[in-house]
């Protein structure tokens, strides 16, 4: 609690004591107005003062003024008890608002406490503590256990585990060793690391994320705009109604002034818009916080709103649904064991750095005896012709595509695999077998797609620059609704536009990509979602929503958080406006006292805020 809040608590406690005392004395003494007045002053002496000050500055319809007129009016017509209650509860409500807002501000700042204060710069063998801004690209920095990684870089010495929870929401620590990249904002847990920086602080992940998070709430949701517009007309209307209520009926009915002034004062109590205005941004803020706690960064409450009504989700294939890394997925051998076939392929491809060669080497996973490799000849566009020793005999080996098999006279005895690239092997003119290398589907994808369907997404689409049939096969195995292949980046934009025109009214379309080469599509969709945000500036810049790790199922979490938040916002708006209007009607007709008006103001505000705070908590379902 802040000092200001503590002082307020003391004042309000004193006020409450005098208020109770006055209530006890009310029936027994003619002097009960004294404790009432004391209670009133303790609770709200500063309110009329502020009202006067603001009026001189030209701000008339502010809440201080409304509260002052309402309570002073009530005192004049003799409703002391109500006047004190209004002031006391109004202040309690304000105090509660203040407390709740500060609390949720703080919980979000703590969450995003990833800003490194310093870097240990290694200069001529000497370590020096400097501002992260001073470190240049290529400098070496030292990171000790317990310290934050200040800049993005590559480990040059040491190994350790890193806590990336604040960045990705992933609670498992990540192992890093020499040659691996580290991301700023993560926390070094175990060993000392020497890191060569690859970016300036301004371009480092931590700066990008902080900037994104801090600016997030400046892009406002429609609901926020609605409520501020509503508040702008609501207060003047209610005040005008109050004036009419105080003057017209007594003139028409001839008298009863105090009754009607009392009702008018109750109107003023309900006319404060704060409960409405505060609960909406508070809910959105909580929703954004809950999302970032789970490694989902949203660039604004407007996107939170949009994610809540997703209807179509369009995925890019490579790097999003699939890992984008090519791996050996199938080995079929006709004359020897698969292991032997793979070994031959590795020997033949040993000198090659082609991605396909690399994935074969990775699948084999062992060192080879280079003495077994004879002359190697690369046949451009077809493959490799190599002399390889096996079982003491030098063999004439061909490895490559179907054209190469034709050229050497070998007959391929298997059908071509649809997915990925097939590499055929032959000895002289005898077919040996094939190795299929393909991009693999991310393990998390089926769960993500199932979750999307369950939470209201009607259409799942995949776009790819790959061959149509490759796309179809992936699409079929995943159960997607539509697949479009052979697309250039420009075609993807056109396809997304086409899909945008087909979606249901009031619903939104999201495009999910890895941020590489798909910036225009990310921008064109209602919501552009980039995956694997860590370390990819392009993704952070182009997307509206950044998923920090590479789990597509986080989109489901984003939807759940968004719908929860939007739901809370709707409840608050309906509840607050509903109660206020109801109270106004009852008060005007004389069925409700000023006590109801107090509930219509403070009670509604407190309940709406308590409801808004729910947005901050979200548990991932497993």
């Amino acid at each position: 609690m802040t000092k200001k809040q503590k002082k307020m608590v003391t004042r309000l406690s004193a006020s409450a004591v005098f208020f109770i005392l006055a209530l006890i004395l009310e029936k027994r003494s003619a002097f009960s107005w004294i404790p009432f007045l004391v209670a009133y002053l303790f609770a709200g002496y500063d309110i009329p003062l502020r009202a006067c000050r603001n009026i001189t500055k030209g701000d008339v319809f502010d809440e201080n003024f409304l509260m002052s007129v309402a309570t002073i009016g009530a005192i004049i017509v003799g409703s002391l008890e109500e006047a004190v209650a209004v002031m006391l509860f109004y202040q309690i409500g304000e105090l509660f608002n203040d407390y709740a807002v500060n609390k949720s501000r703080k919980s979000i700042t703590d969450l995003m406490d990833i800003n490194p204060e310093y870097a240990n710069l290694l200069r001529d063998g000497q370590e020096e503590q400097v501002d992260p801004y001073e470190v240049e690209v290529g400098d070496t920095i030292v990171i000790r256990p317990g310290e934050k990684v200040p800049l993005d870089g590559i480990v040059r010495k040491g190994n350790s585990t890193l806590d990336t929870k604040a960045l990705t929401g992933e609670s498992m620590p990540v192992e890093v060793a020499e040659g691996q990249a580290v991301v700023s904002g993560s926390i070094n847990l175990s060993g000392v690391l020497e890191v060569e920086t690859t970016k300036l602080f301004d371009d480092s992940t931590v700066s990008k994320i902080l900037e994104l998070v801090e600016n997030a709430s400046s892009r406002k949701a429609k609901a926020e705009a609605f409520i501020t517009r509503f508040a702008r007309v609501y207060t003047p209307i209610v005040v005008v109604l109050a004036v009419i209520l105080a003057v017209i009926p007594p003139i028409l009915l001839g008298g009863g002034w105090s009754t009607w002034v009392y009702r008018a004062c109750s109107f003023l109590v309900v006319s404060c818009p704060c409960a409405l205005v505060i609960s909406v941004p508070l809910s959105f803020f909580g929703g954004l916080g809950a999302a970032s706690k789970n490694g989902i960064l949203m660039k604004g409450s407007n996107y939170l709103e949009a994610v809540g009504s997703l209807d179509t989700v369009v995925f890019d294939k490579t790097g999003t649904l699939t890992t984008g890394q090519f791996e050996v997925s199938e080995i079929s051998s006709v004359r020897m064991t698969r292991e032997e076939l793979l070994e031959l392929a590795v020997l033949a491809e040993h000198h090659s750095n082609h991605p396909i060669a690399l994935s074969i080497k990775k699948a084999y996973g062992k060192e080879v005896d280079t003495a077994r490799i004879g002359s190697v000849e690369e046949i451009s566009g077809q493959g490799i012709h190599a002399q390889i020793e096996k079982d003491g005999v030098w063999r004439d080996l061909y490895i490559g595509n179907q054209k190469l098999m034709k050229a050497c006279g070998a007959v391929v005895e298997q059908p071509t695999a649809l997915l990925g690239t097939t590499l055929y092997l032959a000895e002289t003119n005898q077919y040996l077998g094939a190795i299929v290398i393909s991009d693999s589907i991310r393990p998390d994808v089926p769960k993500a797609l199932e979750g999307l369907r369950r939470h209201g997404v009607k259409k799942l689409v995949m776009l790819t620059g790959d061959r149509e049939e490759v796309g179809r096969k992936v699409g079929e195995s995943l159960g997607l609704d539509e697949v479009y292949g052979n697309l250039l980046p420009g075609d993807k934009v056109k396809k997304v536009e086409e899909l945008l025109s087909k979606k249901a009214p009031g619903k939104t379309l999201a495009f999910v990509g890895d941020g590489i080469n798909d910036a225009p599509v990310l921008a064109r969709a209602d919501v552009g979602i980039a995956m694997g945000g860590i370390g990819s500036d392009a993704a952070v810049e182009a997307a509206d929503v950044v998923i920090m790790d590479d789990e597509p199922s986080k989109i489901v979490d984003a939807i759940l958080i968004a719908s929860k938040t939007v739901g809370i916002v709707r409840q608050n708006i309906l509840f607050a406006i509903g109660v206020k209007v109801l109270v106004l009607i009852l008060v005007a007709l004389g069925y409700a006292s000023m006590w109801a008006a107090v509930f219509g103001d403070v009670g509604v505000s407190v309940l709406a805020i308590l409801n808004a705070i729910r947005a901050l908590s979200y548990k991932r379902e497993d």
Partner: protein
Amino acid sequence: MKKIIKLEGLCCANCAAKIEEGVKKLDGVKEASLSFMTQRLVIEAEDGMEDQVVEGARKIADKIEPEAEFKVLR
């Protein structure tokens, strides 16, 4: 040019909306947004008008919410 201002101690959501509204109407302001929760006022000002805009915003903030401290961050 983008100017970022922190209004520390901003504690009334409706005032925040009024300040935002006022700043938007200032000469030289292309776009303005005040987040009540982060207490940040982000103004997109026309080139060369930055100082004038910040001064104007300071006056508005002081009029509507004198309790909040006006700090220009960037």
